């Protein structure tokens, strides 16, 4: 890894604390992800994206800004990247996955808030995240109460835009969301000083669709009888998707997919014989958080699908590509994003149907419902998801946890017992 201390200092960061936090993330990455055996050779690129997320990628974005492009920080898969990219700006998802920044957030936030929100705010407040000072605009959304109020804190310094994600999916909600996407376009045009052009938007739609297709292809490969890569590696790829340049990412993932297809043909095995196939469903695991996947796979199972925001919720639907002009393009983008089945919606029947469908398609032996502690919507929705899975004959286990390591003993018992219960 290249040393970027000079840049970090120029950005006004607490460089010492930055290293304390990010070196610990890197050690955790080495201990979990890099310690795996039999990894595909082309995973090396994605490892580099993760390890360079707070160095190389920062330098790259700083260079883009020096050339006149803008940097947009986001926090949710509901933010339409197409519009950002079409205006020549760079989007990066900035959600925190480390427990180490949480104490800095707890100086302001209550303890009983989800770790993702606390980790994110903590990175901003501790002056350790290099993306903060580079941001020309940060984009929040209204997918949960803790996030909404955190945006109010972060927006105090200006340069913040909040997208109102509706709570239902009726005609009025569609109109509201469409207007929100239009307002987002106007705000981005103001930030970038550029006007959105239909040709550039069409190109950005094609690019994002290419990226989603590559991720969907990866998802298909994981359905193989012998998955050609671990669930932890698939998660690393998803985390990289939220950070990396979309074109470079797509090219690299397409290349990895070829390697994986070859592995499937040759029958290369990454998990122990008879490994139980598990789907993780619910909350995201963002960069820094490898806890659940590591625990499940250390117990001898293999994660073959992620029905999460760092999984199918990110890539499973495409934006319709057409040449009907800017209005039609924006309408197509708005329509695509509203297909995302986040638990903030009421009702959210399509998600429950989707979990059951994916469990069948991926031939899973069981589903682990992953709930970040204090994420009320996924936690409550878990009851209906579990009932639907039970009806379909699929065992499920709900895990509620945060980023700390103190409960790994208890979690291991639950996961081990869940797997023991399948040995029949």
């Amino acid at each position, binding site marked *: 890894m290249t040393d970027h201390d000079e840049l970090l200092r120029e950005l006004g960061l607490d460089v010492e604390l930055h290293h304390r936090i990010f070196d610990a993330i890197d050690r955790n990455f080495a201990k979990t992800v890099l310690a795996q055996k039999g990894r595909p050779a082309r995973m090396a690129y994605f490892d580099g994206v993760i390890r360079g997320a707070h160095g190389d990628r920062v330098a790259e974005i700083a260079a883009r800004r020096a050339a006149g492009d803008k940097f947009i920080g986001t926090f949710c898969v509901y933010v339409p990247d197409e519009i950002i990219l079409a205006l020549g700006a760079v989007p990066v998802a900035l959600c925190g996955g480390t427990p180490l920044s949480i104490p800095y957030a707890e100086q302001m936030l209550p303890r009983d808030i989800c770790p993702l929100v606390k980790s994110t705010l903590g990175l901003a407040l501790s002056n350790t995240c290099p993306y903060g000072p580079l941001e020309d605009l940060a984009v929040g959304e209204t997918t949960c109460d803790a996030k909404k109020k955190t945006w109010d804190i972060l927006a105090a310094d200006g340069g913040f835009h909040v997208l109102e994600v509706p709570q239902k999916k009726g005609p009025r909600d569609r109109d509201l969301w469409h207007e929100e996407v239009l307002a987002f376009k106007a705000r981005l045009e103001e930030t970038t000083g550029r006007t959105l052009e239909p040709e550039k938007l069409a190109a950005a739609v094609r690019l994002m669709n290419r990226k989603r297709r590559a991720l969907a292809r990866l998802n298909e490969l994981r359905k193989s009888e012998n998955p050609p890569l671990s669930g932890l590696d698939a998660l690393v790829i998803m985390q990289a998707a939220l950070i990396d340049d979309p074109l470079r990412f797509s090219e690299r993932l397409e290349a990895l997919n070829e390697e994986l297809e070859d592995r499937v043909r040759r029958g290369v095995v990454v998990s122990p014989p008879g490994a139980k196939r598990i789907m993780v469903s619910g909350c995201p695991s963002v960069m820094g958080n490898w806890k659940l996947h590591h625990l499940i796979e250390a117990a001898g199972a293999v994660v073959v699908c992620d029905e999460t925001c760092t999984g199918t919720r990110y890539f499973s639907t495409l934006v319709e590509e057409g040449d009907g002009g800017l209005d039609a393009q924006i309408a197509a983008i708005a329509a695509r994003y509203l297909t995302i089945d986040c638990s903030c919606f009421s009702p959210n029947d399509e998600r429950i149907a989707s979990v059951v469908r994916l469990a069948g398609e991926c031939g899973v032996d069981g589903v682990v419902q992953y709930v970040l502690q204090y994420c009320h919507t996924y936690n409550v929705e878990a009851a209906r998801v579990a009932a639907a899975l039970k009806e379909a004959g699929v065992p499920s286990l709900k895990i509620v946890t945060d980023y700390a390591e103190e409960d790994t003993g208890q979690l291991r*018992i639950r996961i081990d017992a869940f797997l023991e219960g399948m040995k029949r």
Partner: protein
Amino acid sequence: MDTPSPDLFLGLDLGSRTTKIVEMSGGAIARYDIFDTTHDSIERVRRRLERRDYARAAAAGYGRYLMNAHLDCRVVTEITACALGARFLDPAAGLVIDVGGQDSKAIQLGNGSAAFSEFEMNDRCAAGTGRFLEVMARLLGFSLEEFGRTASEADEAVTLSSMCTVFAESEVISLLASGRDRKAIARGLHQSVADRVFPLAARFEARGNILMAGGVALDRCFVDLLAKKLGRPVVVPEHPQLVAAIGAALFAQ
């Protein structure tokens, strides 16, 4: 080193508060040992295993992987172990409620060959565990035996608003300061643990006997309150703390 007996199976349960060793021979419990989990309890288990007079051994509990790392010993979760142990002790058992030192769980036994069909565990918190009762007994100046007996004899129960061990502790101190009767507080604390354990068990359909496992099953007041809340009798085996260790021995077999 003794000669291994082809008929002797060892079951270990390395719990957070106590460690249990059960020796099973000819389908019956030959010997058992229960001692506090301390800095040297692992050593004591290891010494027992090193005698190698048994055919096979299996370990359950929080310390199960420690044993597995050192000696030829299979590993099983206490969920499976409890289910196996419960079925051995009571073939008519359908549900096991295990309240131990650090957690509580309800396990629905499986049909046919499956040890269990489903389980529920409490959150990572001492509420609804033996540890909660232990802390409260000490606060009220009772031994564990006195605590349960006194609670049974109480004519009334103080309702406690807090399930959290730390907050309940301050609540109990305020109650004592306001002159409330120790017995009624003891009863209230038992009720509070029963209230916490009840929803774990109530999620499962009633079929077969309900068997109680874990050290808290020795507390008659708790068992009575839970049975009342469930509206069904709760069976307590002779040595409820040994259920998982017995199951581990059966698993080894």
